[in-house]
């Protein structure tokens, strides 16, 4: 394709956008709205995924040992735990360290521990991490059988609920995203169909003077791509602003909620939305052109 021809395509696309000013604005806003909602769900789903996996990875099994074990017995228990399938990490926490941690967690209230005097009521323990959330339960059961183990604890119900919830959210999010992408596609296809219809005379003349189908198609495809990418840029702008405000608010008030940091997360989302918008625009005009091209 000659550069001059490409210039011609862009010029035609832009002049058609100007010509159907109101319609162009309407379709850019609908695309922006669809992609905004799509982006919002994407961000929400990804954040929930992020939180879920953050919580999932925090779930570990605390294995409390019987008080009368010697060093060798404890090491023995440790190696046996390591051999259980699904276990990825085993950390020994001796009773002194456990106490120090406990003090830290109490913070300003650690004076309460003064009543204990020099005694330490906490047991020696192992912290066991597993490869996936499904492994927690069987691993904990296996550990509890071992000799020298007092008991093995984990947040079973929380994990199982979290598990169903994230799966559900992923599913709903995916369905919504597909639905909204189709809606945006439909809207652009409609807009282009209107511009194609408005220019059917021109298309007819182009065919009579020997323009190829590809040549006739390009300006409309470019028009669709401009509509799609313009809409997506608006959506991206609004999303970035909203997410910035949201993360600031949440970091101030709900420190423990693990939101995905703005960068580079939003860059990826932005690129994705702009690419999606452009593809949707090109696809939309291709769809509406297919019927018109048969002259």
């Amino acid at each position, binding site marked *: 394709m*000659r550069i001059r*021809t490409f210039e011609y395509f862009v010029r035609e696309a832009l002049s058609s956008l100007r*010509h159907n000013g109101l319609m162009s604005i309407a379709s850019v806003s609908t695309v922006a709205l669809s992609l905004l909602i799509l982006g919002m769900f994407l961000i929400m789903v990804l954040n929930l995924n992020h939180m879920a996996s953050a919580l999932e990875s925090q779930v570990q099994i605390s294995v409390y040992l019987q008080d009368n074990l010697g060093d060798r017995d404890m090491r023995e228990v440790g190696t046996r735990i390591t051999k259980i399938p699904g276990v990825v990490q085993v950390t020994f926490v001796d009773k002194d360290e456990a106490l120090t941690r406990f003090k830290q967690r109490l913070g300003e209230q650690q004076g309460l521990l003064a009543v204990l005097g020099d005694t330490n009521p906490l047991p020696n323990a192992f912290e066991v991490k597993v490869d996936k959330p499904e492994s927690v339960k069987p691993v904990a059961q296996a550990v509890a059988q071992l000799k020298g183990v007092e008991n093995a604890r984990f947040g079973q119900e929380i994990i199982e609920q979290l598990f169903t919830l994230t799966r559900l959210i992923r599913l709903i999010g995916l369905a919504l995203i597909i639905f909204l992408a189709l809606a945006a596609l439909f809207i652009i296809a409609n807009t282009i169909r209107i511009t194609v219809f408005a220019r059917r005379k021109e298309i007819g*003349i182009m*065919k*009579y*003077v*020997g323009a190829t*189908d590809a040549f*006739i198609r390009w300006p409309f495809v470019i028009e669709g791509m401009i509509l799609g990418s313009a809409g997506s840029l608006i959506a991206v702008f609004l999303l970035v602003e909203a997410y910035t405000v949201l993360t600031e608010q949440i970091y101030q008030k709900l420190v423990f909620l693990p939101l995905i940091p703005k960068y580079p997360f939003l860059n990826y989302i932005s690129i994705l939305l702009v690419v999606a918008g452009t593809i949707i625009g090109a696809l939309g005009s291709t769809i509406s052109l297919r019927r018109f091209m048969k002259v």
Partner: protein
Amino acid sequence: MIHMAGVSKIYASGLVALDDISIAIEKGDFVFLVGPSGAGKSTFVKLLFREELPTSGTIYVNGRDVAGLEPSEVPYLRRGLGIVFQDFRLLPNKTVYENVAFAMEVIEAPRREIQKRVNHVLDLVGLRHKARTYPAHLSGGEQQRVAIARAIVNNPAVVIADEPTGNLDPDTSWEIMKIFERINKNGTTMVMATHDKMVVDGMKKRVIAIEQGRIVRDQEGGQYGYEN
């Protein structure tokens, strides 16, 4: 230049528009297609630039097997033809110059070539001074001259005109015919379907008369032969 052999066209409605037509039109010919309304003139013309496909028979235009072309080859057939319609078919939002240049832009001609050719053909139809005017500000005859300029700007071997004077008064029609004659003198083959008795009788060219889908007369220097 144009060869038809055993061409029939039966529309889906069952209407027989053309019935076993065979004809040869040679390079540089000037041919009028005449006949009553609905006799098949329009179908004849449409077959030439593959607006319609024949039901049977073969058509060669410019050495191309028109009926056998792939859809993707149709644009290249049309680049060798100039087509003029009764209703001009100009683009209202383009100037005279742009309307003519459009025909060269869509076949990706170089810019300098476009300038040269458009000015040349606007001179030929006597509208160079109206290059920046929009079609709405032109008379019917002027609009048809722009359409002719557009049809010939790519130097077609054949100009096909379907009732080009149908919307014009006699004086203007005559001007248009003089332009066609000049184009024809430069070696371009002219095929023109018409109802215009004055034009046909005045020009004294080859006349092919079609009635009920058949050729009933093919005469050099012929007359229109019907009462309007």
